[in-house]
Each structure stands twice: as structure tokens, then as C-alpha cells.
């Protein structure tokens, strides 16, 4: 086995656009679940709205790339409002069921033939990169060292993604130190107590849902920046991976989702490189295709074990356990 190539490929995932995009969306999920206690299982829908909002406004309406990002954020805001109004007054698991169903509705609407003109149905969208690449300040060429050698466009995607991630993390850090964040955490711990203090619990929850949803859309945009938008990506599994990332790092922590995403994708990339090789060398008694599936089984088992044995995540504080009830 070529360990050099394996380590090289794996190291690339430390700052891959996918890792960054998942980290941004996981921070959004932290705003929902970690701080607000909202069980949002529709993050794939928010990401899809961000990605499609970006791609469609560029391709069909000829907007500049930065306006596309704003359109994606607005779409997520509207989606959060539609989701929140019927469910935020109800028990937590209703929100879980409605969000997962709504995300599926979003995916179906992007997949159907009916809006083929805008969404290109199941084939997805591509070729919207000109504007974003035009704004690239890096001169042409290949930069970097070791496993991190990328062209100017690849660097631009990564740098832009990390900038967004930094802004998002900073916003969460400041918000959660503010009175607003303390009220939100109070709602997570005991909704009735906060209501008794005269706070409008519904409004706080709604603000949290919108804010986290907009972060999810930004994650979707960064996910779409380097390549294409394909509807088959935005399935429930995507949401569940985000939950695994969030709970791995620690739901109610600032850097938990970021570190969680890095750990998740580095391990995934490592397994993706190693397992097929082991299968090819007949060390594991499985076929190549099976070797590619095994890592996803691990994700499910890992999620299960984290929730049972370390629900606060790697960085979490046991006192700030988010599973109250």
C-alpha cells in the first residue's frame, strides 16, 4: 500500500471546500440545537436553498455572484419562517419531523421535471463560476506546499470559505455571550421558566431558527462554489452527517462544529483511501464497492455511540448538556 499517497489525500481534506462547507452548516446547527435546543433535521434543505439560490440567480437571472449568495440567504430565511410558524409552539419532536419532511419537499422541488428550465432537474446545475472566479484577487498559478498545492481558483474557494466560516463563528461567539444568547440557552434548559420571566420564547426560537438556517445556506453556497449543484446530494443523509459532526465536536461549543467537521472528513477521507486498498490487496474479504460503503456504516455507529456515551461531544461541558429532557 502507498501510505504516502494515502496521507497526502487525507491531509488535503483538512481544508477542503467540503470540510469548510460542512463546518459552516454545522455551526448553524449548533445555533439551532446546541444553543436553542431546536431539533432541526432539515439542514439539507437549507443547504440546498443556499446552493440553488446562488446558482439559479446567476444562471437564470444574471445576478452578480455576491447577490446570488444574498438570494440564497433570503431563501433560507423564508424557509425558516415557513417551518417555524407551525412548529415552534409545539413539542420538540414535531419540529424534527416537520423539518425532515420540509427538506425532502425542497429536494423534490429541485429534482422534478416541472421546473427543469431553472433547476435542470436531476442533472443539476453547473457553469456559474465565472463571476466568483473573476473576483479572485490571487494571480494565476499554483501555490502551496506538500499536500496543499492548489491553483488560484482552488485557493480562492478555500480562502473565501474560511473567511465565511470565521465570520460565522465570530457571530456565534459574540451572540452567545450577549443577553440574547443567554435567553436562548435559558429556553433550551427550561422554556417555561424563561416564559415566566416575560420573554417571548417563540420569537427567540424563531430568530435562532432563521440565523442557523442562514448559516446553513452559506454552507450550501460554499459547497456549491468549487463544482456543481446536484439535487441527489441534499438527501437526509447529509443532515445526519451534519448532526454527527455537531455532536462529535460538541453541540454547545463555539469551535466544536469546526473541529468536528475536520475530524469527520479527515477520518472519512482516510477510510476512503485505505479501505479500497485493503480490499484490493485481499486483506479485507470485501469487494471494492463494499469497501466504499463501510465508512458510512461507521458514521451511523459513531453517531449512536457518541450520543450514548459522550453526548456533550469532545469539547463540550457536561454541565451544558443539551439533552435536558
Amino acid at each position, binding site marked *: 500500500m502507498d501510505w504516502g499517497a494515502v496521507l497526502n489525500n487525507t491531509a488535503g481534506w483538512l481544508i477542503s471546500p467540503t470540510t469548510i462547507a460542512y463546518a459552516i452548516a454545522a455551526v448553524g446547527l449548533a445555533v439551532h440545537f446546541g444553543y436553542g435546543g431546536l*431539533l432541526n*433535521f432539515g439542514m439539507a434543505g437549507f443547504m440546498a436553498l443556499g446552493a440553488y439560490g446562488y446558482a439559479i440567480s446567476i444562471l437564470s437571472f444574471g445576478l452578480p455572484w455576491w447577490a446570488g449568495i444574498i438570494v440564497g440567504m433570503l431563501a433560507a430565511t423564508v424557509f425558516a419562517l*415557513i417551518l417555524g*410558524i*407551525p*412548529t415552534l409552539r*409545539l*413539542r*420538540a*419532536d*414535531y419540529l*424534527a*419531523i*416537520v423539518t*425532515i*419532511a*420540509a427538506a*425532502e*419537499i425542497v429536494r*423534490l*422541488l429541485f*429534482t*422534478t*421535471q*416541472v421546473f427543469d428550465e431553472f433547476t435542470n432537474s436531476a442533472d443539476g446545475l453547473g457553469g456559474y463560476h465565472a463571476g466568483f472566479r473573476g473576483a479572485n484577487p490571487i494571480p494565476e498559478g499554483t501555490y502551496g506546499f506538500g499536500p496543499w498545492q492548489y491553483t488560484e481558483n482552488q485557493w480562492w474557494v478555500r480562502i473565501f470559505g474560511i473567511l465565511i466560516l470565521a465570520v460565522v463563528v465570530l457571530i456565534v461567539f459574540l451572540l452567545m455571550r450577549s443577553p440574547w444568547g443567554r435567553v436562548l440557552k435559558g429556553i433550551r434548559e427550561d422554556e417555561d421558566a424563561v416564559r415566566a420571566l416575560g420573554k417571548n420564547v417563540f420569537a427567540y426560537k424563531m430568530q435562532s431558527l432563521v440565523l442557523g438556517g442562514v448559516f446553513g445556506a452559506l454552507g450550501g453556497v460554499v459547497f456549491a462554489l468549487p463544482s456543481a449543484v446536484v439535487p441527489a446530494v441534499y*438527501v*437526509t*443523509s447529509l443532515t*445526519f452527517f451534519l*448532526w*454527527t459532526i455537531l*455532536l462529535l465536536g460538541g453541540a454547545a461549543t463555539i469551535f466544536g462544529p469546526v473541529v468536528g467537521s475536520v475530524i469527520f472528513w479527515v477520518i472519512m477521507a482516510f477510510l476512503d483511501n485505505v479501505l479500497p486498498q485493503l480490499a484490493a490487496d485481499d486483506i479485507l474479504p*470485501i469487494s471494492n*464497492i*463494499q469497501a466504499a*460503503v*463501510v465508512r*458510512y*456504516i461507521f*458514521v*451511523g*455507529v*459513531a*453517531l*449512536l*455511540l457518541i*450520543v*450514548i456515551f459522550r*453526548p456533550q461531544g469532545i469539547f463540550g461541558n457536561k454541565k451544558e448538556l443539551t*439533552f*435536558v*429532557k
Partner: protein
Amino acid sequence: MKAARKASQRRSRLVVSLFAVVMAMLAITAPGAASADEVGTDEYDFVFSGNVKYNSEPLEDVLIKVSGNGYENEVVTDAEGKWKIGVPEKDKYTITIDESTLPKGVIVADDEANGASKEAEFGLTGNKTVNFFLGEGVRNVTSFGDQLLERIVNGLNFGLMLALAAIGASLVFGTTGLSNFAHGELVTLGAVFTLVLGVFNQWPLLLAIPVAVLLSGAVGLGLDAALWRPLRKRGTGLTQLLIVSIGLSLALRYLIQFFIGGNIYQLPGSSDTKINLFGSVSLSVVDMVSMGVSIVVLLAVAWWLTRTRIGKATRAISDNPSLAAASGINVNGVVRIVWVVSAALAGLAGILWAFFIPGIKWDMGGGFLLLIFAAITLGGLGTAFGAAIGSLIVGLLVEVSTLWIPSDLKYLGALAVLIVVLLVRPQGLLGRKERIG
């Protein structure tokens, strides 16, 4: 599973040899295909082609026109009904069939809005086949009433199998408070067990299906013993349990893919010919048996819940677990039985659904789960009979809505109902208000 893999290898070899035979046959008939009337195929790389047939008889001398992107051309079909037109660009073209050149009493029955024209576009290759569905004279479409009736019967069939799975999920929710996100995988498992036994190992279906249902029940028993019971003992919170069920769902889903791969499999008999019952309603034998089985099993479950001791205990626990435990009901024992029943019902639903779609795929349970949730929410969370009624409504809605909306959006209505129900009547049809908290 080894045997299964061997069987699938054997099958794939069979498929390869079949493919070779087909290719050989094509090679022999190739001169015939080349004699199709062709226009512009030498000049241009992108070719539309088609075959005009009515009641499997080829139609000669039918005029086909292509237009678009400032290009126009026409072609007449040959004795085999075949035609080919080359076009200059890989783009969208309008293809029209001249209805006046069709035999008397035959018209294009594709889509009333577009009539005899079609928009066609190339996929990944430079060839695209464009075919028109020809129908008889004026009365080519079944009347709205007939279509509605057909959809309703299909919807009832679908709703009944949905009810099997939904009642199980609802019982689990009622007794343990868990919204089980892994229920969709239990549905898939039933179908996969049948596939492995009945197709890979070639058991007769009448034996394979009951054994698959029993195996599904055993999975329920195993999950309760190995996972849910210890977690209940630890006093794990409901939210935690919910996420555990998601982890389980992911693990099971990909475990199934690990064993059966990404292909779509068919059970024998799933594409049987349909027998016309009355009017426009035609069902295959499998459809009729499926509906019969669903009804009998649902009635049996209803009897079990209302008449037997354990069934009554189940409802008592759903009502108030502490009170039930205090009055001497063995809660853990009942919950174990509920898990077995629920998993077995889900497995049965999966088998019937595999015939209904038709097809078995590793992630088929994912979409089904959302319909189960929609049905349970509509009926009222935690009420078994509510789940059954909710399922029938969702089943009907899914099928009947295809009269107005495209079939690739048919689950949309069911999921939208979920949101509307929560807006208007969050406790569902049969639920009580205090449950929603």
C-alpha cells in the same frame, strides 16, 4: 450472505451472456436498421431517431418534422416505421408528427397540451430517440372519472401497506415515547430478507415471505434487547434516543447497501399482467393478495389491541406509563412485544411495497419513513387507530394527487399535509390536545 453474493454473481454472468446474445441479434438486424429513412445524418453529428408504431404495427409514410435554432427538416418513415434526422447543434428541437399522414382514426395520444409536437433535447450522447404514443381516434384518453377510480384503488392499496408500518411506529411511540427514525430501515429489511431468501436462495415466495416477516420481528426483538432496553435502563433522554435511532438508521441503511449493493432488484411476480376487474380498474393478482393481506393483518392487530390482555396493556402504557406500571403491568415485557410486532409489521409493509413500486433498493425505506411520519402526525401521535386512518388518507392523497401534479412530485402533497395539519390541528385527527405539550 455468501450464498447470496454467489447467486448474484451467477446472475450477473447470466446478464452478461444475455447481453451478448442481444448484441448478436442486433448485429444481424443491423442492415434493416440502416435502411430507415434518414435525412441529414451524414452532414450532422447529432441525430434524432424514432419508430412510429400503432398497436405494434409499423406505420409507413408518416411525415416527421424537426425545427429549432433556425434549422428545419423533415423525413418520412420507412416500411418499418423508422426515421432519423440529423441536426447541426446539440440543443433543444421541436419534433412534430404530421397527423394528417397517419392512418384514419389514429392520433397522437401523448399529451393533449402539446398535441403532435414534442420538445426533445440530447442527453450525454449525440443520439436521442423520440417516440410518440399513438392512440385510437377521438376517445384516446380514459375519462376523468375512470382515472379517479383507478387512482383511488391504487391509493387504498398503498394506504393499507402504509398503515401496517405506521401502526407499528405509532405503537412504539406510544409505549416508549420514541420517534423511531430507523423504522424506514425496518421496512427495507423486510423486503431485503424476502429478496435474499426468495430470489438469491430461490425459496418459494410463499415460504420466503413468512420467514422474512419472522426475521423482521426477530430484528425488532434483537434491537430492543441489545439497544433500546439498556438505554431505557440508563434513563437516556428522549432526544438522545431520537438521535440514537438516526445513527441506527444510517448504520442499517448502509449495512443493507453493503450486502445488496446499489442496484434495484425485483421480486418474482411483481410485474404480472393486470386483470380488468370493473370499469377502468385493473389489478394484478399480487395487488389483490397484497390488499387482502393488509386488511386481514390490520384487523388482527385491531383485535389484538382491543381484545387481548397484552394489547390492552399496550394501550394502557400508551395512555400513562407510570400508572400502568403501578397497576402491575410488566412495562418492559410489553415494550419488547411491541418492538417485535412493530418490526414484523414494518417488514411486511416493506415486502408489499416492494411489489407495489415495484423494486427493492437499499434506501427505499428513507422516503417511506417520511410518509409514515405524515400518516402518524395526521392521525394523532401515539394513537394506533389514528395512524391507520392517517395512512389511508396519505395513501389516497399520494395516488389521487397524480391526476393534477406530475408523478415525480407525488409525495409532495403528503408532506405538505403534515405541515398543514400541524398548523390547523396539531394533535391530529384522533389525538388529544394535552399530548402536544
